[in-house]
């Protein structure tokens, strides 16, 4: 008897796509935290006076970096299961620049860590601290660029023979960059509310939201979101994200002084903008992929061999994991600063 094909999908494509989207949003949310700490640190290094507690900012940056990596593992898992044929081929086609991500990650993290060390040594801004921060920023950008490159490279039946256009690459970066700025703005608004005695909006928050809104709106207007329903939903979500960010910007601008307490409405509107932006990005990404690969591959029509027992093991681990995280965070909240 011929054994069943081990290469069948281990779950319906819909479930895998859902988990991919969910974990990808989590990954980009953590990336937003990292970006927020990077520009807040830049404000501290180049600004006249930092209004952040450097230790808190350092912790947020280090955790943001680690969590971005950790959270990024899951979407990579699901992408490989769903689109492995394209993902591996595009990775091999890119080759060494793809492998270089490992070095970017190492250099980026340690540069971020050392920048804090320099801050302590110099008791404030220093040339080497600035250089280390720039290095960390460059590494984060290089990682984002390389991932986008791989994604674009994989959007073809034969990734090894595919050359993504510069215009397409530029539009992708516009979308990613804009969304990352909006998410980082939302994080900064929360930092301000939680970490600053006067509850004021940190300098740069409104500019991050404004710049993110401009990029995202531009992207939604000039990009091909495809004609299917998912793509159109993606465009609507992106437009919503852009508009909400503009509203946040106007509200913060109308306060004129960033030292005034942040408006509760901004504190809640900016995460809503971030969530809309992230969901829009995921929807657009997937609908575009479906359109590009149509005719060669359709995940929905793949053979499925559902592994119920192992899936339940994962679901149980997830529930226990979330409860454990909740318990730990509850104790963290109770801990006096």
């Amino acid at each position, binding site marked *: 008897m011929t*054994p*069943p*094909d*081990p*290469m*069948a*999908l*281990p*779950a319906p494509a819909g479930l895998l796509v859902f*988990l991919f989207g969910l974990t990808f949003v989590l990954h980009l949310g953590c990336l937003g935290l990292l970006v927020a700490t990077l520009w807040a640190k830049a404000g501290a290094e180049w600004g006249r006076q930092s209004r952040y507690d450097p230790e808190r900012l350092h912790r947020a940056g*280090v*955790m943001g*970096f*680690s*969590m971005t*990596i*950790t*959270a990024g*593992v*899951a979407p*990579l*898992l699901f992408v*490989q*299961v769903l689109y*492995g*044929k394209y993902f*591996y*081929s595009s*990775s*091999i*086609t890119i*080759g060494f620049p*793809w*492998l270089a*991500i*490992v070095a970017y*990650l*190492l250099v980026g*993290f*340690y540069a971020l*860590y050392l920048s804090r060390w320099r801050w302590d040594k110099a008791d404030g801004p220093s040339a080497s601290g600035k250089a280390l921060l720039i290095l960390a920023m460059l590494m984060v950008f290089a990682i984002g660029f390389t991932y986008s490159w791989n994604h674009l490279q994989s959007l073809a039946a*034969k990734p*090894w*023979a595919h050359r993504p256009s510069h215009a397409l690459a530029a539009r992708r970066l516009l979308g990613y960059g804009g969304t990352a700025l909006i998410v980082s703005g939302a994080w900064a608004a929360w930092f301000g509310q939680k970490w600053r005695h006067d509850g004021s909006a940190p300098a740069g928050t409104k500019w991050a939201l404004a710049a993110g809104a401009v990029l995202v709106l531009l992207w939604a207007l000039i990009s091909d979101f495809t004609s299917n329903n998912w793509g159109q939903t993606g465009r609507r979500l992106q437009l919503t994200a852009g508009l909400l960010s503009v509203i946040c910007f106007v509200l913060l601008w109308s306060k004129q002084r960033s030292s005034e307490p942040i408006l509760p409405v901004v504190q809640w509107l900016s995460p809503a903008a971030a969530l809309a932006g992230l969901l829009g990005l995921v929807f657009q990404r997937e609908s575009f992929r479906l359109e590009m690969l149509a005719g060669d591959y359709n995940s929905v029509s793949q053979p499925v*061999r559902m*592994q119920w*027992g*192992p*899936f339940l*093991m*994962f679901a149980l*681990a*997830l529930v226990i*994991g979330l409860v*454990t*995280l909740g318990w*730990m965070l509850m*104790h*963290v909240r109770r*801990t006096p600063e």
Partner: protein
Amino acid sequence: MHYPIFDLGPMGPSTLIAIVAIIHVVIAQFAVGFGIATPWLEARALRHHDTVLLAFLRRYARFLILFSFVAGAITGVGIWFVIGLISPETISLLLRQFIWAWATEWVLFLVEIISGYIYYFYWDRMEPKTHVRIGIIYGVAAWGSLAVINGILAFMLTPDGWLITRSFWDGWLNAGSWPSLLLRTISSLALAGLFIAVVANLKPEDETEKRRHIINAGSIFLIPLALMLPASIWYFAVSPAPATRLVFGGSVAMTMFLAFGLIASTLIGLFAYWGLLKNRKSVHLETALLLAGIALIATGSVEYVREGIRKPFIVYRYMYANGLTQAEMQEINQSGFFATHPVIADGLDPAQLSPIERGRLIFKGECGRCHAVDGYNAIRPLVETWTPEMIRDNTRQLNRLRGFMPPFAGTSSDLDDLVAFLSTLRSEEWSAVMPRAEIRP
């Protein structure tokens, strides 16, 4: 044949995998050992009001963040990247078959990272009992993560019933997974114990007595090393017979590496018991580094053996080291290499290529995953003294001549092409230096 080939040049694919994998295994196992050792020592120190040990543990925890979390997580990603580039068929199989195990491991990893950061950043700020509990959560998550991945790694050597049922559980809970988990747990604890000895010596202003106290406390985690030998015997008892034969004399390199790994581990374990625990001796930085270095090399050696004894397979009796399944091999034998439309020949008309060119593509497709033309594990030094007839005969019965090599897949015409290519690597210098042997009647 479904993917392009990542050409690493003289470095060779196996060098890259070995470097990243060994670094990652050491760091990841240290993280697991840390997770078990530190909360246990912290609870003990709290019970005995041992302020010296508590102060040390806090310092030790910094290594978790700087060394284990970052380098461990990144090299873990690095392994994926490298395997995805070098052996996409393997990682694709492992992911599709075990996606829910990988996803479970991801949840554990998430809990591990968050609890680890809380454990480090909230030291002295939380109620001690809660702090220890968070340390225990970290340890459980780290060990659980190891257990999940261990099942998948052990599957590659002992897929057992999976070969018949293709069942997740048959694959994941295979016979090799239990002794392998025991071995990895012992190794993790030992690494944590050795790093305690290293870190304790990194603060020169600490008095000798303080250092001795800390090192003695940590040395208890080195004692399980004495179990390495029986655990290894269990591991090889459940391994496939050809793999075991390779270790016990079939391959000198494998035997030597395993012997080194086991002897070094056992000696360190015995030293920990007699020297550090029983006689309460101390070690200074140089000795601690030497012991840690030996342990790292021993871990690398055992990993090398684990990888090596699977050959010629990458998933035993299912997929060969070159990424071809047994079924695909049969197809290529019947239809020919180019009839299966390998990606490396995409856009080319084989009939228009020279035999040497076709042979080069066959070499790339069937041998390129392990061999470079020049450099590490290179093919040139192997064939440069052979005649074309020898190349043909040896290639045709490769798996019989060298048990760790996959069989050649292809028709006789494919073999002609490969021989044509390999013959271009022969060196004329050899013919001049080594005259033909005279055959006397």
